[in-house]
C-alpha cells in the first residue's frame, strides 16, 4: 500500500498526486515512469514521474479512462495498492548547450524533472508549453522558475502565443541555435513538433506512451518501431530519437482498446454517480 500524501486539481480534468514510494523516489531520474495499480481489480498503468521530493513522487494525469478517473477521486490519506518503479531508461542528460523542453497538454507533466536535470547539467533551458486553452495549461509558474526562459502557446489564443508549441519552437529555432530538444505530449503533437526540429538538425527526444501491461519488458504490448526496428518502450525507452519513430504506428496501437476503454469508463461512471464521488471500492 502506498500513501497518497497530497492531491490537487491543476486544470480541467488534470490532477496531480504525491505518492509516498521510497523505492521509486530514491532512485528516480528524469524521463522515467512508474506503474500504478489502484486496487486488486485495477489495471496497471504507466505514469511519468513528474517530480521527486524525498521519499515521495509526483504524477500528473488527465482523468479520461476508468483508472485515471478513479485516481482523480482519491483523497489525501487514501492509498493505492501498487507502485512499481522507477522504470525505463532515464533521459540522456548532458551538457548540450541550449536545450528546448517542450510539453503539450498533460505531457507538460514530464517537463519539470527534465528541465531541472538539463539545467543542473549546465544547459541553457528554454521551456515551451502549450495546451488547447489557458484553462488547461499546467505548471506554468513552476517551469518559469526552472527554465531560463519559458514560452507559452494556446490553440485558441487564450494564453500566450496563439498557436501550437511547434510554431513557437520554429520561431525560436529561426532566432537561435538549439542543440537538443525534448518533446512530450500527445503522439500527434510529438510527431508534428519533431518535424520542425528535423530540418534544423536538432537532436530530439520524444517520450512515447504506448499501452503497457507489466512495464518491465515482459509482454511486448508497448512495442514501437524506431528506425525500422521493434523496440519496447518500457525498457528500451520511453525516450527515443524523435526522427526515427514511426508515430503513425504508435497512434494506431494506442487505439487498440478504444471500445473496451469506453465501456469501462461508462460503466464506472454509472456505478459511482450516485455516491459521494468516492471510489466504488472504498
Amino acid at each position, binding site marked *: 500500500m502506498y500513501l497518497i500524501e497530497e492531491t490537487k486539481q491543476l486544470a480541467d480534468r488534470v490532477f496531480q498526486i504525491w505518492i509516498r514510494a521510497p523505492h521509486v523516489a530514491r532512485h528516480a531520474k528524469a524521463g522515467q515512469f512508474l506503474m500504478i495499480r489502484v486496487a486488486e481489480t485495477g489495471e496497471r498503468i504507466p505514469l511519468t514521474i513528474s517530480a521527486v521530493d524525498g521519499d515521495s513522487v509526483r504524477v500528473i494525469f488527465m482523468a479520461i479512462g476508468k483508472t485515471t478517473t478513479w485516481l482523480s477521486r482519491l483523497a489525501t490519506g487514501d492509498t493505492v495498492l501498487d507502485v512499481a*518503479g522507477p522504470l525505463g531508461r532515464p533521459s540522456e542528460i548532458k551538457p548540450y548547450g541550449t536545450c528546448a523542453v517542450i510539453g503539450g497538454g498533460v505531457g507538460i507533466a514530464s517537463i519539470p524533472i527534465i528541465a531541472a536535470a538539463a539545467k543542473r547539467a549546465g544547459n541553457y533551458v528554454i521551456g515551451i508549453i502549450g495546451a488547447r486553452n489557458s484553462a488547461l495549461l499546467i505548471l506554468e509558474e513552476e517551469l518559469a522558475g526552472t527554465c531560463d526562459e519559458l514560452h507559452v502557446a494556446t490553440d485558441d489564443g487564450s494564453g500566450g502565443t496563439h498557436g501550437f508549441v511547434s510554431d513557437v519552437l520554429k520561431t525560436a529555432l529561426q532566432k537561435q541555435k538549439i542543440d537538443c530538444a525534448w518533446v512530450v505530449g500527445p503522439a500527434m503533437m510529438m510527431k508534428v513538433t519533431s518535424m520542425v526540429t528535423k530540418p534544423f538538425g536538432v537532436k530530439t527526444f520524444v517520450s512515447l506512451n504506448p499501452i503497457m501491461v507489466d512495464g518491465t*519488458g*515482459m509482454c511486448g504490448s508497448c512495442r514501437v518501431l524506431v528506425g525500422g526496428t521493434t523496440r519496447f518502450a518500457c525498457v528500451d525507452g520511453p525516450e527515443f530519437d524523435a526522427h526515427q519513430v514511426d508515430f503513425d504506428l504508435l497512434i*494506431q496501437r494506442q487505439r*487498440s482498446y478504444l471500445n*473496451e476503454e469506453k465501456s469501462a469508463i461508462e460503466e464506472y461512471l454509472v456505478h459511482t454517480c450516485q455516491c459521494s464521488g468516492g471510489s466504488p471500492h472504498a
Partner: protein
Amino acid sequence: MLERPPRERIHDFEEVDPGLSQEEAVAEAMRCLQCKKPSCVAGCPVSVAIPSFVSAVASWDFAGAAAIIKEENMLPAICGRVCPQESQCEGACILGVKDLPVKVGALERFVADWERAQGFVPPARSQSTGCRVAVVGSGPAGLCGAAELARRGHTVILYESLHAPGGVLLYGIPSFRLPKDIVQAEVAQIEALGVEIRTNHLVGRSVTLEDLFAFDAVLLATGAGLPYFIGIPGEQLAGVYSANEFLTRVNLMRADRFPAYDTPIRRGSRVVVAGGGNVAMDAARVAVRLGASVTLVYRRNEEDLPARRAEVVRAKEEGVNFEFCAAPVRILGESEVTGVTCVRMVVCAQDGNMRPVPSPVEGSSFTLDADLFIGAIGQGPNPLLIREIPGIARGEVGNVEVDPDGRTSVSRLFAAGDVATGAATVILAMGGAKKAALAIDQMLIRSGSV
C-alpha cells in the same frame, strides 16, 4: 481421477484434473515396488525421496508423506501439477516398462493438497547465521532458492518486480493447469520460513546494483520473460499478441473477467497461435476459454511438439485445430488482423540438437482467416538487469553463464532457472536453484561469514 469433460471445462478456468481421492491415492501408492535403487529419484531434478513418501501414502500417513516431500521440495502442490513427470520420475519408473508407471505426480499433488486443507505445519529452520542473501525474481527458481537459503538460517530478501510473487507460475501458467490460490499458499509457506518478499521492486531500478552487492550473496532468478517475435510483416497490427502478453493479461490481470477487472483483452473469434511448446498450448487453451475457435500452427510434425503430451491431448479435446508443418509468413490486415498467411514446411535434416529442421515448400502458401494472432515461439532471459552487471559472462541466448553449482563469473553472484539455462521447465529451474542455494550456503560457511 477422471478429468472434467472438455465441453464443460472450456467454459471456465477451473482445473481440468480434480485430483485423487484418499482411497485412489492409497491404492495408487500401493502399486509402488519400493525399489532398492529407485530410478524415480534419480529422475527427479530435486531428488525427492519418492519411494519413502509413496510408502507413507500407502499406509495412510499423509502428514508423514508431506514432511518427506518437503525435505527436498517446498513447492509440491505446484510440481505435482506442472512437472513433466512422464520424462522424469514416472518416465524412470520400472513399472512403466510393462504397465503404467506409479502416478508420482498425482500422488505428490494429493499429499500437498491434503496438507494444505489440514493447515500447514511451519517448516523447521536453522538458527540465524546473520548472513544476508538477496534473491532476484520470485518464480520457481527464486522461491525454491529463497526457501533453501532461509531453511539454512540465512536472512533472505526476495525481490519481485510485479505486484505479486510467483513469476511465471502466476503470469504464465493458466489457472486451469495451476490454480492461483495454490501458488499463493505455497508462497505463504516460504514466507513462513522468514523470507521477506518485496514486490514492485525491479532490481537495477528500485534497488541499485550497489545495494544488491551489499548482500553477502545474490541469487539471480529473473527467468526468461522476454518474448520473441517472429519478425514477419504485420506483427505490429492490433490483435497481435506475444503469448506472454496474452497470458499475462488473463492469468495475472484477470482480463477474462473484464469489466469486473479493468485490464481488457481482445477475445477474438478466430485465433491463430504459432508455436508448439507448453506456452503455445496454454495460449491456445486460454483463447478457447475466451470463446474463440483456435488453430495452432507448428512448423514441424506432431511428434516433434515440445509441449507435454498430456497438454497436447487436452488442447485437442478442447477443440484446438492443429496445422502441422506450417509456418506463418505474414499477418494480414490494415490496422487490425484479418488473416494469417502460412507456408507448408517440409521437415528434413536434423539440427545440432537432433531436432528436424523445417524448410518452406515453394508455392505452398495458404491463408487462415483470423482476427487474433498469438506468437508463442519462445522467450529469452530479460536483459534488463543482466546487461547492467559489469563483467557478467553471457551465453548464446542472452543467458547468464554458470558452473554446475550456479556460480556466475561475478564474485558472490549466482544464477539459476531460465536466466541461466534459457527457457526450460519449472522443476529444472528449482533443481538449479537448489544447487545454487547449497553452493551459496557452503560459500558463506567457508568464508567465515556464518
